């Protein structure tokens, strides 16, 4: 792990000076590293790209058929521009064109996903390589100091340009204007490249890949949140079908992509913002690499206790040490989002009371009490997906501990396999319960503050959040079951199930999926509390299913070889 000080300099000074200048020498080997990185990602990046483009293509196809006439499009645009919730989740409406509808329906989520893809790819080829020590091995060969970072960024740049170009093609083929399609593709690529640059900085600052990924993904999430706030608190343009976003939207790369308005009054100059933030962050990353050793971070570690406290020396104790940071991060982030959702209750209520069109539209979705109740149920499902992401991340910590060889020494002590897995699953599930509770309470409190309605309304928020628990636990059960028997497939199957549930929940209606497919998502079976009555039967069935999945997973975990 530790670098040998001065190695780089010695090698640089004895390298043949012929025809090579400083910067060129620092880049020696970039092409090879790029090919290596491309080969290692030959499955991951194509899968991401195909998933992104498939989502886009499906959304566009259904929008083209659903909103064929100007009247239908206008009706949609009015709702999308005036509804605060729609603005927060989908972004600023920009006119009545098909392209504008495609942007609101798909750009936010695509930008979020391409951001995560780019962050993970950059970290995978930079900090993760250093952490495992592979970078040291490669660095001792004829490889320039900057080659690794340059190769990682080139790979991610290529992936983003590829996705952007393919997205443009999808839009053009669907019959959207060429100019707007090009801009939309460029905006998507711009978002990805911007986050790649930010991830490059995070990879220098944090000493662990986990930490770098966390920083990057928090920035992506924060960008989504900033633009959600900016769009929600923006104002309606005179046309009635366009939104003028408030300033927070302009602090977010995802916001820039939407402010570019490719299919409205386009602002191509916004692309310069992407270029700017990318160049600045990448230059920052290179400056930081100059000031640190291979393997080290920017924040020096302090000396710690020479002895373990009594809290640490048990399976639950060490598992808590491994989970607490992640748990705290997710709980804080989701509490903020819950608070934001609760905080716009007033706007939602006013809006829903004044807009008959909207009331009719949302009212048609369910036979619930009030529209505000529906808003609560709808908003908290979204945060439940995020909570499920936390649960999966926490559960797969056992798997990464196993692969990193840190389960082996523990199981070689008098700790049973069940106790070890039980400790991790226990904290992950406890964290899930706490996070759902925190979301509900945060939303209930801010909602109470702005509406001055307490009591039943606050309880509604908390209940609407907690009612998602069985569905979230089912997704965790899938993770544990697959990890117990077919460990290699755990990550793709479980995350696939989460993304599938998200697509079914958010796009199922739009894509007119058959009920049988809709039923595959555990969230389909959760009653939309408080708009619907709290029916315990589906919840108990989901809980039973989850319990069975965990039990299956534990059985497999007890029987299989440890992978080390």
């Amino acid at each position, binding site marked *: *792990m*530790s670098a040998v000080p001065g190695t780089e300099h010695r090698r640089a000074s004895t390298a043949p000076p012929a025809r090579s200048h400083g910067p060129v020498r620092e880049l020696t080997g970039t092409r090879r590293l790029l090919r290596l990185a491309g080969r290692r990602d030959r499955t991951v990046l194509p899968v991401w790209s195909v998933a992104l483009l498939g989502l886009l293509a499906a959304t566009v196809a259904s929008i083209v058929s659903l909103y064929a006439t100007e009247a239908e499009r206008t009706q949609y645009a009015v709702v999308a521009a005036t509804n605060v919730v729609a603005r927060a989740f989908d972004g600023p409406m920009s006119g009545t064109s098909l392209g504008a509808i495609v942007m609101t329906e798909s750009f936010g989520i695509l930008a979020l996903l391409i951001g995560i893809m780019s962050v993970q790819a950059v970290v995978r080829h930079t900090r993760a390589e250093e952490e495992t020590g592979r970078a040291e091995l490669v660095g001792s060969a004829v490889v320039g100091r900057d080659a690794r970072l340059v190769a990682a960024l080139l790979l991610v740049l290529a992936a983003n340009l590829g996705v952007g170009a393919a997205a443009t093609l999808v839009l053009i083929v669907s019959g959207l204007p060429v100019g707007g399609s090009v801009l939309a593709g460029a905006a998507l690529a711009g978002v990805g490249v911007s986050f790649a640059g930010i991830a490059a900085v995070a990879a220098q600052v944090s*000493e*662990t890949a986990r930490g770098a990924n966390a920083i990057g993904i928090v920035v992506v999430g924060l960008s989504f949140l900033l633009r959600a706030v900016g769009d929600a608190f923006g104002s309606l343009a005179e046309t009635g079908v366009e939104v003028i976003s408030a300033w927070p939207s302009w602090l977010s790369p995802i916001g820039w992509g939407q402010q570019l308005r490719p299919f409205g009054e386009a602002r191509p100059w916004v692309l310069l913002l992407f270029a700017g933030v990318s160049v600045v962050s990448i230059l920052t990353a290179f400056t930081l690499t100059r000031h640190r050793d291979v393997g080290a971070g920017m924040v020096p*570690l302090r*000396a*710690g*206790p*020479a*002895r*373990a406290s009594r809290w*640490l*020396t*048990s*399976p639950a*104790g*060490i598992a808590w*040490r*491994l989970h607490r940071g992640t748990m705290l991060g997710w709980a804080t982030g989701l509490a903020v989002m819950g608070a934001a959702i609760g905080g716009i209750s007033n706007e939602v209520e006013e809006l829903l009371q004044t807009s008959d069109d909207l009331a009719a539209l949302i009212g048609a979705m369910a036979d619930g009490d009030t529209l505000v109740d529906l808003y609560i149920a709808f908003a908290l499902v979204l945060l439940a997906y995020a909570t499920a992401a936390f649960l999966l991340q926490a559960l797969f910590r056992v798997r990464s501990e196993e692969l*990193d*060889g*840190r389960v*082996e*020494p*523990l*199981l*070689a*002590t*008098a*700790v*049973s*396999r069940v106790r070890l897995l039980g400790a991790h699953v226990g904290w992950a599930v406890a964290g899930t319960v706490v996070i759902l509770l925190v979301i509900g309470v945060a939303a209930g409190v801010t909602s109470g503050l702005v509406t001055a309605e307490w009591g039943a309304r606050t309880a509604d928020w908390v209940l609407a959040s907690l009612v998602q628990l069985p569905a979230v636990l089912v997704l965790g059960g899938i993770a544990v079951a697959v990890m117990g028997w077919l460990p290699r497939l755990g990550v793709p199957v479980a995350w696939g199930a989460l993304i599938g549930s998200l697509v079914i929940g958010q796009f199922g209606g739009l894509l007119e999926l058959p009920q049988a497919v809709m039923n595959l998502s555990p969230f389909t079976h959760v009653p939309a509390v408080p708009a619907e009555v709290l029916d315990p039967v589906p919840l108990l069935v989901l809980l039973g299913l989850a319990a069975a999945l965990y039990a299956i997973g534990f059985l497999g975990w007890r*029987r*299989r*070889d*440890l992978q*080390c």
Partner: protein
Amino acid sequence: MTDSAIQVAALTKTFGPVTALDAFDLDVAVGEVHGFLGPNGAGKSTLIRVLLGLLRKDHGEAVVLGGDPWRDAVALHARLAYVPGDVHLWPNLTGGEAIDLLGELRGRVDRRRRDDLVERFQLDPTKRCGTYSKGNRQKVALVAAFASEVELYLLDEPTSGLDPLMDSVFRGCVQEARRGGATVLLSSHVLAEVEALADRLTIIREGRAVQSGTLAELRHLTRTSITVTTARPVSGLEGLDGVHHAELDGTELRMEVEPEAMPSVQRLLADHDVLSMISSPPTLQQLFLRHYGQELTPDELAETGP
């Protein structure tokens, strides 16, 4: 039967198409230091992981301290300590925390002994494991293992990454453990280490035990190197069986002699008036290499000697 700490018979373990252990046999007596010798990839770590119940055997028998390593894993682990060859620790725990964690999960830790070992291995227990070098991570595992009083130590290439000074501290620990009546299975490809510590040893190659016995027994199977200067050039070697790589340079003769040929070689040399003679016992190195089918030239022997 109760004299064996570890008994393994016809043990087989495959990973897909790869056979890691192939009808492997091993018998480690209570109270001995048993050397477990083989090159990388021979199956040493796989065997130790089967003995720890981390891997499930396919066929054959494995008994550790009278129990089944898979079924009785937890009860057995309270009576043994394991040091892996490649120690992975939690980057944000300190070395001291990791030692206490591993030790207390196994059972009770002798505080005084732990502090003494930390001192002897010159480990800074307040540093985060993420900043430790390979050698220091190894020390953490060694301190955690030797700080607990157990009946059996499973040491999988425990000194990779230790400097020579720490190596001798490690040897001291192994000898103390043996004096205390513990059994040690010491896997290694460092021959000097096994030569210095082991009572008996087993050589593993491609998942099979190719040789097992005391050092003396195994040495008996191989050749003695002899360099001799005589008054008159030696003649008549051609007629002798069991003499290899003989090189005659004037009055100096170098050769390798099998044990059975030794009497007749001595008689022949005596006839040529020996002026000086250097005779070196077969090293484990030669023994080892012979089991991998490579015959050594004297030059190579000079390079790879003890």
